[in-house]
């Protein structure tokens, strides 16, 4: 019997679900709401030099890669399986597109984190 690839994607979905349950709401709140409108978050908190320093630190790189990659794998897993719920009976192509785009996002993030310097 052919071995299922589901455990791999389920693990990434689970890891992304866990990480997003812990940090996604606060990240959305900070970067998307309070920092742009300047409420409870000073202008210089997300200043170029500061965020650059974070992205150049090895720990910052690790955190950014984990957030981007795992959020993507979590989201595409749900979107792919959710297609059935809205009446789209997706095949292998949709599966490749879903997990492929999460993998592509991960590779782009890794490339950017290297090119941003150390």
């Amino acid at each position, binding site marked *: 019997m052919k071995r299922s690839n589901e455990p791999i994607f389920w693990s990434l979905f689970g890891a992304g679900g866990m990480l997003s349950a812990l940090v996604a709401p606060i990240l959305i709140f900070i970067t998307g*709401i309070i920092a742009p409108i300047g409420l409870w978050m000073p202008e210089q908190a997300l200043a170029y030099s500061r965020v650059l320093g974070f992205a150049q630190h090895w720990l910052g790189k690790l955190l950014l890669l984990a957030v981007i990659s795992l959020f993507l794998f979590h989201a595409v897993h749900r979107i792919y399986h959710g297609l059935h*719920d809205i009446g789209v009976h997706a095949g292998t192509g949709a599966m490749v597109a879903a997990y492929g785009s999460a993998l592509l996002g991960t590779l782009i993030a890794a490339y950017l984190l290297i090119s941003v310097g150390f």
Partner: protein
Amino acid sequence: MARVKTYVRPMRGWWRRNPYYVRYMIREASSVFLAIYTVILLVGLFRLTQGEAAWDAWRAALANPGSIVFHWLALLTVGYHAYTWWKVAPKTAPDVRIAGRPLPELVITAGGLLATLGTSALVYVIVRWM
């Protein structure tokens, strides 16, 4: 060959028929908001590699009213995902037993929600002051 016309039960709008399914669909929809938010972060990282002017342009774009509305919707749906994640944790977590008794479901869910609150406070403090 002629297709046999068998009755197919219509499924359109199935999830609007029951509040439980509506909540399920909101939870699943959170993944669309999370995916878009992650792409926004990825674009931000790209702009960061392009220099200070590009980074500031990305920040300015996030101050657009449409962006603010999107992020509120993302916060609500992804926040709901976080809640449901801990709500089902008693069923998905490893079986932890203390003196032979399983942890009460409420303890696992409350512990998870507290972990989210604690992590959120930590992230806020780091972004703002460190």
